[in-house]
């Protein structure tokens, strides 16, 4: 997609970006453009660098070589400033296991100043309110933990959503909820990048698909 000249600035711009884990170049020169409101699917084998690409875009990893910009911020110099505008759901859920679902969502929502109403809305959207809201996260199933983590993400109202295997652990109903949530978020102006092995479901959800192979990105 080289229509950058006519489109508004891409949300994600990677040019030959290299990201290193230890001494291993997990991302070995990735080039990618993601436009606003796209739902982009990253497919690729394990070890290809999908997780690293997501973490790079979240501003968590330094760019070793090449260029990377997210939401206009150059990640070489401003990767801390980009973070409040990005939501990352990685393999871990980022939850406090001894607190309740409600406490977790409230904590994460409050760190960005979300109102009580927005937090309640987020919890209702992911169906983790009600009885579930008072349970400790430690006692939840994997799918319920995932939904809680997503509720935290929704409460933060990020402009760029980065999701690593979001469907994993969810049952059919949960997956439908997730798809609905993502479509609604994209419609409301968010950009979404999803790494997934669930090619059918994620493929139906996505507006575009790219392949990540051996640390690089290519069109399928």
């Amino acid at each position, binding site marked *: 997609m080289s229509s950058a000249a006519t489109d508004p600035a891409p949300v994600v711009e990677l040019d030959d970006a*290299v990201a*290193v884990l*230890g*001494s*291993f*170049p997990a991302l*070995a*020169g990735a080039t990618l453009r993601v436009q606003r409101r796209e739902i982009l699917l990253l*497919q*690729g*084998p*394990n*070890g*290809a660098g999908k997780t690293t690409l997501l973490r790079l875009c979240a501003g968590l990893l*330094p760019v*070793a070589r090449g260029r990377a910009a997210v939401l206009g911020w150059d990640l070489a110099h401003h990767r801390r400033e980009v973070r409040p505008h990005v939501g990352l759901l990685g393999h871990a859920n980022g939850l406090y296991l001894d607190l309740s679902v409600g406490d977790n969502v409230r904590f994460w929502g409050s760190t960005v100043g979300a109102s009580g109403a927005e937090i309640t809305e987020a919890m209702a959207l992911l169906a983790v309110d009600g009885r579930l809201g008072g349970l400790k996260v430690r006692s939840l199933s994997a799918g319920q933990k995932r939904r809680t983590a997503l509720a935290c993400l929704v409460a933060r109202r990020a402009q760029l959503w980065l999701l690593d295997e979001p469907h994993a652990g969810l049952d059919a109903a949960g997956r439908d909820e997730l798809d609905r949530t993502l479509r609604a978020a994209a419609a409301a102006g968010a950009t979404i990048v999803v790494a997934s092995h669930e090619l059918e479901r994620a493929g139906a959800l996505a507006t575009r698909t790219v*392949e990540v*192979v*051996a*640390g*690089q990105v*290519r069109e*399928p």
Partner: protein
Amino acid sequence: MTTLHPAASRATDAVAGSPRRAGTGTTATRILGIATIVSMCWLVAFGLGFSPADRDQEEAVRLLYVHVPTIWLAYLAFVVTAVSSAMYLWRRSLGWDRLAGASAELGVVFMAVTLVVGALWGRLTWGVFWQWDARLTTTALLFVTYIGYLAVRNLGGSHAQRATRSAVLGLLAVLEIPLVHFSVQLWRSLHQGRTFEPNDTNMDGLMLFSLFVGVIAFTLLYTWLIIHRTRAMAMEDMIDDRGLDDALAARRAEAAAVPGADEEAH
């Protein structure tokens, strides 16, 4: 990217290709090295030979010709580390980080020598290896603090990450040392003990001269070692970078070899 001093660049070029020379030596370091050896010989001559034995301490005073210079150097090394840490945070040039690291390594070595020689001196003069006086105790804590600094330097990650972490820690150490010093001093002032360290300025002229030679000799040694160590570190960093180039090439070759999307690539 790493920026090297011109002399170091020549040295690393030597490593890279030329069959004539390999290593971190240059004309400047050769001269420095010779000066160091000469002054060390002077130190041995004066310290062990020409200067007289002390009236009270007898031959044990000769240990001071090593002990005092190493203390001075240990503190100099840590000042260099602190200043380099600050300079790195200001300028973000990896050369400052390498200087900070090399200086800390040398500081730890000199501090260890100080403590050991000091303990021997104490045994010979006061009859004990250790005294809980302000200076010794602070020195010991300083020693451990910088061992911690070196441990953090080896945590891994990119060069920039290592540099930032170490620089912050280096500056924190600067914060810690005065606090430790004052608290230990206040503490020991409660116990009217004798000072372990030689405060006797009533030294024979020749003894003072030997001490002076010692300081010069060790300072030259420090400078010589620092230059070599920072250059060696620069080369280590270059090897890391080259390692990354190789790893990148290998990974990209992997991509070329994979025809489709659904294979497990390990």
